[in-house]
Structures are given as structure tokens and as C-alpha cells.
């Protein structure tokens, strides 16, 4: 029986590359492609794939919240997170969200097949840096990973995180309501609750919060010929 893989990345060119990479393996098939987290969740529910590969930086619903919602729906989903950065905070959030694989996009050509194989064999797959962090955390009784990090997103509900991302992406309450099939009034209530819980006072504050907490990712232009910015 074929191993069925669902891919979620907002860039079609990346999905093409990933498809080419994965479908070289006999017995593997990409059963679906999603261009954002919400679409990924819908497709995963319909297709019931063996492995889901999600990019962290997707519009509408980022990869971390996609992972959380998928596992809330069905804890048996096996999820690999693709990321452009392996900062401590992103690693911790991916682990907390329940991802069983963590692959840097820049290393995907080398690592992704191994990651899928690991999950297929009921193992986990992490980059060497993640392994180091996990080991450090274990040796330090679980505190090393988070000791110097700001608190993650404990006080927002899943719905509030979705609304936070959409507002931070520049959408109006009306647009958010339409995307989430809610009334504008409900979205405005979510918005007030979010601002109150996070002690924020403006949309600008909300955008800064969303960037700092990896809810959205921004892109910087190149600064110089030696600038090294992780952009796909």
C-alpha cells in the first residue's frame, strides 16, 4: 500500500520541488497539496494522509496552529514541520504543538526523505540542532529549552490565535469574519479579548506581538552583498 503524503506550503514552486523529491521514492505519493493551514486541515480530514508536511510561515493559519488543530482533531496525524529558522523558540513551539519531525527548508532536499522514513517507522526526526536542544532540556530536567524564552501563547484560545494572525496580516474584522464563517460582531469580541489578554493597545502592537511569537513571519530586503537572510 502506498504511503500517502499531504503537503502544505503557500509557495507552489516549493510544493513542486517537494513533490519531485518525495515522488522519486517508490511507494510514496503526494495525495494532496494545500496552500495555507486552513486548506491543509480540510484536506487532511478528507484524505486522512499517513504524513502531513506543513510549512510554518503560511497565510491565514500558520503551520504551528495547523499542527495543533490537526492533532486536536486526530492525535494520530504524523506531522513534519518545515521551517526557515531553527531558533530555540520555534523549536520549542513545534515540539509543544506535537510535531514529530522538524526540517529546515534549506535542508529539505537532504533531510525530508529521511524525516518521512522516520515517521513511517514510528520514530521522530529532528535536525541536529533540535536534537541538541532536546538533549540539553532532558539533562537539565526539562528547563533548558525554555528558561530564557518569553512565554509562548498560553492565554489565547486556538480561535483567538487564528484571529490574531488574520488581523496581523492586515485583514479587517469583516474580512476575518468572512474567512472564519463568523459574524463581524463575534470577531470584534475576539479582537477585544485578544487585546485585553495581551495588554495591547493598537493593531501595530498586535502585529509586533504576532511577529515576535512566530504567528506571522516578515521578510526583510537584502541589506548588502553579504547579508544572510533565510528566505525561500
Amino acid at each position, binding site marked *: 500500500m502506498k504511503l500517502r503524503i499531504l503537503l502544505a506550503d503557500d509557495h507552489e514552486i516549493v510544493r*513542486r*520541488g517537494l513533490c519531485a523529491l518525495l515522488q522519486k521514492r517508490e511507494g510514496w505519493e503526494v495525495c494532496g497539496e494545500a496552500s495555507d493551514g486552513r486548506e491543509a486541515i480540510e484536506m487532511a480530514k478528507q484524505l486522512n494522509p499517513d504524513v502531513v508536511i506543513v510549512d510554518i510561515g503560511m497565510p491565514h493559519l500558520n503551520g504551528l496552529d495547523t499542527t495543533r488543530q490537526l492533532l486536536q482533531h486526530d492525535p494520530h496525524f504524523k506531522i513534519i514541520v518545515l521551517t526557515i529558522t531553527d531558533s530555540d523558540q520555534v523549536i520549542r513551539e513545534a515540539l509543544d504543538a506535537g510535531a514529530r519531525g522538524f526540517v529546515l527548508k534549506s535542508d529539505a532536499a537532504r533531510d525530508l526523505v529521511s524525516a518521512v522514513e522516520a515517521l513511517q517507522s514510528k520514530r521522530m526526526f529532528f535536525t541536529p540542532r533540535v536534537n541538541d536542544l532536546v538533549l540539553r532540556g532532558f539533562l537539565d530536567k526539562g528547563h533548558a529549552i525554555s528558561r530564557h524564552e518569553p512565554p509562548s501563547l498560553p492565554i489565547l484560545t486556538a480561535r483567538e490565535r487564528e484571529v490574531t494572525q488574520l488581523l496581523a496580516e492586515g485583514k479587517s474584522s469583516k474580512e476575518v469574519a468572512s474567512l472564519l464563517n463568523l459574524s463581524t460582531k463575534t470577531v470584534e469580541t475576539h479582537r477585544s479579548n485578544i487585546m485585553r489578554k495581551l495588554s495591547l493597545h493598537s493593531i501595530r502592537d498586535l502585529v509586533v506581538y504576532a511577529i515576535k511569537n512566530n504567528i506571522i513571519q516578515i521578510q526583510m530586503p537584502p541589506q548588502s552583498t553579504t*547579508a544572510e537572510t533565510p528566505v525561500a
Partner: protein
Amino acid sequence: MAVRILLVDDHPVVRQGLRTLLEGRSEWEVVGEASDGVEALEKVSAAQPDVVVLDVTMPRMNGIEACRLIKQKDPNAEVLFVTQHDSPQMMREALAVGARGYVVKSNLARDLLEAVEAVSQHRVFTALARNPQPAG
């Protein structure tokens, strides 16, 4: 006549995606790949491509600087930027250093083939995500 194409992007998986799209055209040939601007300059000398498909943000040497040097080294090679920067300002900068084309990664499936065809015939092709502007 075959169009010789050099792919330059720091992410192998993106180069693979570009290759998959371009190899659909039998008269086009991907003659090499590079992962940054410095390597691109070396490959331009060795492979003598007709079209260089170039990312903007790369380590060691970014695409803007690489394009300027590629055009100095081989004025006949046409440069097509393929980037995430959906920005008129970045597009103007790219054209100012000699690029003939500029397309954004989010719309590559729509724009890439048309853009490569245009720049291989020395025509300008620019298309931002929300405002495609092919020009003859």
C-alpha cells in the same frame, strides 16, 4: 535553438521546483545550478547560459549584486529575477542593474514560463503578485 538556463537559489528544493516547471519545455535546457551569487558568477563563465533565473536574497552575495556582475561579465546573458519580494521598489532596483525580468515566487506557476520565454527573446517581463505587467 535551445535556451540554456542557469538556476540560482539558495534552497535546493526551490531549484528542484523551478527545474520541474522548466523541464516541461523540450526546447529549454537547465545547464547548471548555483546556490548563491558567488557560485552563480562562476557558473555563468562555465555554462554560458542564455537566461539566468536568479533569487534576490541569498548568502555570500545577493542577487542584485550578482546581476550587476553577471551583466558585466556576459552582457548577452539575460537575467530573470524570481523572488519573494513583491515590491515595486525592489523590481526597479533589479531592472536598474540590468535584469530583463522580475516575477514573484507566489505566482511562478502562472508567470515563469512566459517570463523565461520573454527574456530569452530579450523582451522585458515583469509581474508583481497583484499587478501583472508583461511588457514588450
